[in-house]
């Protein structure tokens, strides 16, 4: 049995090793050998951290909520103003530490093989040091025990992420980085203010020892904290930066940002909900929170379904997933408010399982799309296609990851959503009004799930199926297995997590209320079923069909053209991803706001009937059209008025100072 000290050492090494690797990487220029060395060091650190966190989860404390925390390192020895528990681990932070480290392990593995293919776009020393700081910040955030350390680590993480976004220094990246920086600083400001209000100014207090949330100021602080985390997680209406910034980073860093950093934002929220607020949130706050997060889930899925840029579509899908996870957190709070502790526990577990799966499949998808893009040289799904024939293994892996993202069986995400849906649906009978709310929750959830399945099918079909839609896609080379071994492992893990979920949960949360396990079966809300049986029966059915077919038919198929009605098919006649998504774009046009413009220009001067027509298609987002623009206009207008104060007369300025002084004195005294 590992002792607590050993676990602490493992985690501290995992904190430090990436920093060492990053500094080491500074001296290597764009050398492949250095990159490999840095990658191996990172993998080692991540593996140690994962071991430490995993050992803590499986061996130490067994409570579902508010488990006691174990100190990691006595920072007070070096910084006397800090409390001795400033760095500590409990169940929640160990779980997210595991997520961070597993994600980092997979990404480091991938970047050993991926980055050399992109060596003409990125400067490696820059990437290495930014990644090191980024990961250090994330790990520190997760193990911090006080608001002060938390904010410090949070800023390191945010700051480093900015440099990852602008890593290729293109104009688009700089623009995306700018909007990221603004939103993240706004969020951080909310966090600082929120923690100050909640902790009554004592930022050095341990999370566990913060005063209970009571009074208007504390509730306001809580709301500010929620806004801060929502801004980082891309919850509507603070989501606009996410689909712009995540895709701009190198794919390995996108995988870290979408797969791992968003989990840190989630961790912050859960930490505040669990440890600071003890889930006692006012009902109106919960309802508002649920409304926004559910809308985020729906809207993110919708935009993922209509977006044709591969990485942006994945980023939108992250917005959806964060909406789902945040709304699960809201449901935990709602169930506690209603007194349904068992239901709250079940949703909590669903949330944690979803978070783990999301790290796996989203980082896997980003890494796989990185490999894909490095061959096809485009992010546009409309210019891909035909790759399933060229890369059968890779496409199978991508399909498995898409299956996980679409929350279909046998992926772990399906069982997470299954626990959630069953719990919520079992609680519908609690009363008319609550039933109404829960029904809305569950149906929006289902709509988001349907849209997510649509989005994933579209992404896979656009990228891999039919004929190649561009020359690049038609002439792709082979993909080495080493390049996509890491996302493949992520996919396998995500599916395995689903199949063996009862065993996993029994190891981590043996005493969970709301979810029970017997053998290979999960039991929620009085109903049980076994993921293993589902997979086995699915496999048995496929095998049975296969055998029957082989018995009946043995002739080999004959290959011919595709049926084209006589006019030879070109790739221009196929359905592209954009065309595929036309129905949802139309059905939900009040959310997608498509702008279709047909510009016709006369070609010849003497005949105005001969025209060249051009179709322009553009999507605005509702947040931009209805929130950001009006706010910007309002600020602009106010600024215009304020400008009049700048009259240039010194006496006027002095008068202003005088007035300010008098007002301050009146207020202060």
């Amino acid at each position, binding site marked *: 049995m590992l002792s607590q000290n050993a676990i602490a050492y493992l985690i501290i090494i995992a904190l430090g090793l990436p920093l060492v690797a990053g500094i080491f990487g500074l001296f290597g220029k764009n050398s492949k050998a250095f990159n490999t060395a840095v990658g191996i060091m990172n993998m080692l650190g991540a593996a140690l951290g994962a071991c430490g966190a995993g050992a803590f989860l499986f061996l130490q404390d067994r409570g579902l909520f508010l488990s006691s925390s174990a100190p990691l390192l006595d920072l007070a020895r070096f910084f006397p103003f800090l409390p001795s528990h400033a760095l500590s681990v409990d169940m929640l932070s160990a779980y997210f530490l595991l997520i961070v480290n597993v994600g980092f392990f997979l990404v480091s593995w991938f970047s050993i093989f991926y980055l050399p293919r992109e060596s003409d776009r990125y400067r490696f020393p820059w990437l290495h040091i930014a990644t090191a700081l980024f990961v250090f910040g994330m790990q520190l955030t997760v193990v911090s025990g006080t608001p002060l350390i938390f904010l410090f680590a949070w800023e390191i993480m945010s700051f480093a992420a900015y440099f990852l976004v602008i890593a290729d220094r293109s104009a688009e990246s700089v623009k995306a980085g700018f909007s990221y920086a603004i939103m993240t600083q706004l969020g951080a400001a909310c966090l600082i203010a929120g923690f100050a209000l909640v902790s009554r100014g004592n930022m050095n207090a341990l999370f566990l020892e913060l005063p209970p949330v009571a009074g208007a100021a504390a509730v306001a602080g809580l709301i500010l904290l929620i806004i801060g985390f929502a801004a980082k997680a891309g919850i509507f209406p603070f989501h606009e930066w996410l689909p712009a910034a995540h895709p701009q980073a190198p794919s390995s860093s996108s995988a870290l940002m979408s797969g791992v950093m968003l989990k840190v934002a989630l961790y912050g929220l859960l930490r505040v909900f669990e440890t600071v607020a003890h889930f006692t949130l006012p009902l109106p706050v919960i309802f508002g929170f649920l409304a926004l997060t559910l809308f985020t889930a729906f809207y993110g899925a919708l935009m993922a379904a209509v977006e044709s840029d591969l990485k942006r579509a994945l980023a939108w899908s992250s917005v959806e997933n964060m909406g789902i996870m945040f709304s699960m957190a809201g449901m935990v709070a709602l169930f506690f408010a209603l007194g349904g502790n068992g239901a709250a526990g079940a949703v909590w577990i669903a949330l944690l399982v979803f978070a783990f799966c999301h790290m796996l499949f989203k980082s896997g998808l980003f890494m796989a799309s990185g490999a894909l893009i490095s061959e096809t040289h485009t992010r546009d799904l409309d210019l891909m296609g035909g790759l399933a024939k060229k890369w059968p293994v890779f496409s199978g892996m991508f399909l498995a990851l898409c299956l996980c993202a679409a929350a279909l069986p046998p992926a772990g995400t399906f069982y997470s959503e299954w626990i959630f849906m069953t719990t919520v649906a079992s609680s519908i009978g609690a009363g008319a009004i609550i039933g109404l709310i829960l029904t809305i929750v569950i149906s929006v959830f289902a709509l988001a799930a349907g849209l997510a399945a649509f989005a994933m099918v579209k992404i896979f079909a656009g990228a891999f199926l039919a004929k190649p839609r561009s020359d690049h896609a038609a002439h792709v080379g082979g993909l080495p297995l080493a390049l996509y071994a890491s996302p493949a492992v992520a996919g396998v893990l995500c599916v395995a997590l689903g199949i063996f979920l009862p065993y996993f949960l029994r190891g981590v949360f043996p005493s969970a209320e709301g979810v029970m396990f017997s053998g290979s079966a999960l039991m929620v809300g009085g109903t049980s079923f076994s993921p293993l049986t589902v997979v086995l029966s699915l496999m048995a059915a496929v095998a049975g069909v296969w055998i029957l077919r082989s018995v009946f038919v043995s002739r080999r198929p004959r290959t*011919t*053209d595709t*049926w084209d*009605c006589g006019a030879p098919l070109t790739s221009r006649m196929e359905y592209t991803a954009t065309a595929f998504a036309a129905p949802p774009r139309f059905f939900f046009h009040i959310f997608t706001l498509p702008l279709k413009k047909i510009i016709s220009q006369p070609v010849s001067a003497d005949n105005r009937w001969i025209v060249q027509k051009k179709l322009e298609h553009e999507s605005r987002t509702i947040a931009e059209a209805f929130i950001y623009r009006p706010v910007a206009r309002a600020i602009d207008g106010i600024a215009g008025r304020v400008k009049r104060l700048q009259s240039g007369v010194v006496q006027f300025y002095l008068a202003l100072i005088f007035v300010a002084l008098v007002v301050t004195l009146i207020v202060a005294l």
Partner: protein
Amino acid sequence: MITESPSKIRDFNLENFETIGGNIKKLVDELYGGRALRIRHIDAGSTNAEELELTALGNPYYDIERFGLSFTASPRHADILTVSGPVTRNMERALKTAYEMTPSPKIVVAVGDAAITGGIWNGSYAVVGPVEAVVPVDAKIPGDPPSPTAIMKGLLTALEASKDKKHA
């Protein structure tokens, strides 16, 4: 205005039609041990007169579905290809690919005089010639256009021919 009493219209002899249909059914049962055959029609440049007659096969009056025959939308689903019209140059490739992608065993039936001989268009620069010139034909149904009963008779002949082939 109807100038001829309905009973004198040539193809109004339903008993005859039913016998033929019944024979087809019997023959198919005998030949293939109980099959439902699907027909894919290809208009290779006809005047649409044949198409009208073929469409009539599906109406409540003739109703070929009761003999286990049906029309289908893709040559990949088809057992019988019916081709009408002199094969125009534009449709030559279409006819060939359709023939190619129809899974065997398959029967090709040329429907109408134009499909059999090229009709009055034979020799035109826009026409390749009769269907035979492009794909192998198993049966020919003369008439411009052939009546539904004649078409059914032609199908029967085609099936009998393939029966003979099988026995030979």
